């Protein structure tokens, strides 16, 4: 048994136990399971949001982008900041509607605002299709991190299997509360790992990040300005991508619903103020990617940059710590993804689409059962067909962002109609599929999802003007 293995295994077990413990003495109904009884204060909300948002991509993807693409990686730093600014205005309003009508999910919101179950089912299906590949990506990331960090002692398949059965277990027992609690461990470990490595490696190899940048500017100045070391990710791409992802950020069904867990609209506003500070660790991750480019320039897979540099620099027990941090960093977002994929299917596809008379208790039991089904499906995909869902993954962000016009107009524009939103959504999704599957992304230098969003807005506005307006009292009722 090596030290790394003990640390990784111990962390996975301990986190899961904490997640299960979080749900004790809470009577599990749909309200408690999905939105924590709407009682989360600023700390739990912050933990939950950060837990969902900062995924394995923060570890591997951001350093990998800095390593192989260079300046286009900076988009990651920008879009989160824009998203928090949007959330300051949007989430408190979403929370109020959620509280007033006892909503649990994003399709619930569409069903209530637009009085349309068809729209709800469509939103739920698009949501689930975007969530499953994202979940699989987390699984794959977890396996990859643990296998590399334990130096092969803990195989990728075994790591995925164990940690996901345990994740499944704490979602089943504790719901959203479990995710928020495990997030405590996740956030602490991730910040320590990223902080130590991000400040450490530039100092160890160059005597500070300023000197590291000096060396990089001398060797590869083009890497640090757009389009970096890519051919297509120029200014227009970054600008359209940060607009798309900044607006689409809270349209992910699991992140949208997290807004309902807050105890007040004010909590959501305060949370929006503090969230941007969470972007600072991303800067450290970039430092690691850039240092890796100078120290180990010949990696075939850029996503290895973070782990390879840690492996070269630190003792194996610290590598184990990084592996453990990576594992919980995958487990927390996954738990929420599984939770909402199941609830969307049970509540918004089964109940809203096929059986409106189903009791809440029945929906709850079905949701819990679907946790097992969805985890199993994602496991099968991750273990045996790792590239089967790659097209869906490419479309995920572009797809969920198409909800944005429906949400914003629904809250703030009296003239919007359900047919308008429906046609905008269908047009947007069609353009996404056409451009992404036809390999036309970027399109005219812009992110294809952004092009689709513009078409979506045009359709929503145009068709809304041509059709009979909604009953606005749903939003404005007191």
């Amino acid at each position, binding site marked *: 048994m090596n030290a790394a293995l003990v640390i990784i295994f111990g962390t996975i077990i301990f986190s899961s136990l904490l997640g299960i413990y979080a749900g004790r003495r809470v009577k599990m109904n749909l309200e408690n399971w999905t939105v924590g009884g709407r009682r989360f204060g600023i700390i739990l909300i912050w933990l939950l949001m950060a837990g969902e948002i900062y995924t394995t991509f923060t570890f591997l993807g951001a350093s990998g982008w800095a390593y192989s693409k260079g*300046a286009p990686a*900076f988009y990651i*730093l*920008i879009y989160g*900041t*824009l998203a*928090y*600014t949007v959330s*300051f*205005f949007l989430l408190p309003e979403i929370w*109020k509607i959620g*509280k*007033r009508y006892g909503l649990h999910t994003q399709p619930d919101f569409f069903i209530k605002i637009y009085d349309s179950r068809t729209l709800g089912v469509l939103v739920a299906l698009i949501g689930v299709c975007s969530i499953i590949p994202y979940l699989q990506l987390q699984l794959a990331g977890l396996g990859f991190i643990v296998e590399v960090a334990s130096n092969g002692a803990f195989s990728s398949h075994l790591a995925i299997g164990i940690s996901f059965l345990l994740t499944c277990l704490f979602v089943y027992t504790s719901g959203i509360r479990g995710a928020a609690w495990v997030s405590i461990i996740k956030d602490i470990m991730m910040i320590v790992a990223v902080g130590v490595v991000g400040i450490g490696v530039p100092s160890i190899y160059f005597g*500070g*990040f*300023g*000197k590291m*940048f*000096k060396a990089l*500017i001398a060797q590869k*100045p083009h890497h*640090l*300005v*757009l389009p970096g070391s890519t051919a297509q990710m120029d*200014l227009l791409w*970054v*600008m359209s991508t*940060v*607009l798309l992802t900044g607006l689409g950020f809270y349209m992910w069904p699991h992140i949208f619903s997290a807004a309902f867990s807050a*105890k*007040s*609209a*004010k909590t959501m*506003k*305060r949370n*929006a*103020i*503090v*969230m*941007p*500070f969470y*972007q*600072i660790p991303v*800067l450290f991750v*970039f430092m690691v990617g850039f240092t890796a480019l100078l120290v180990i320039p010949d990696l075939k897979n850029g996503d290895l940059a973070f782990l390879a540099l840690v492996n070269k620099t630190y003792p194996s027990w610290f590598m184990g710590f990084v592996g453990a941090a990576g594992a919980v960093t995958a487990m927390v977002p996954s738990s929420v993804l599984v939770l909402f994929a199941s609830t969307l299917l049970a509540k918004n596809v089964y109940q809203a689409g096929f059986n409106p008379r189903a009791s809440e208790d029945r929906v709850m039991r079905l949701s819990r059962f679907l946790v097992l089904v969805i985890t199993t499906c994602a496991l099968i995909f991750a273990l045996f067909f790792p590239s089967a869902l790659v097209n869906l993954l490419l479309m995920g962000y572009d797809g969920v962002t198409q909800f944005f016009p429906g949400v914003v107009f629904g809250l703030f524009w009296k003239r919007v109609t359900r047919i308008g939103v429906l046609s905008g959504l269908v047009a947007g999704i069609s353009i996404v599929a056409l451009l992404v599957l036809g390999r036309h992304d970027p399109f005219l230098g812009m992110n294809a999802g952004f092009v689709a969003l513009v078409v979506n807005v045009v359709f929503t506005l145009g068709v809304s003007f041509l059709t009979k307006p909604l009953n606005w009292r749903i939003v404005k009722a*007191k």
Partner: protein
Amino acid sequence: MQKGTKLALILAALPFISLVFALPLVNRIEPVILGLPFILFWIVSWVILTPVILLGAYLLEKKFNVPEEEDKQ
């Protein structure tokens, strides 16, 4: 729209202007400030300024908006 929300929206437009529309103007390495290439320094500064801006927006809303029933909880 209430006055406080209007003022808050104007303030919140700042990160969008500087982090999206001003990017073509800052896409360069020189001058290197605090060890960071200029484009990165620019982005990081706005990441740090944004919470301050949002706090300002929060205070403006508090000062000028008449609170709704649901805001009081």
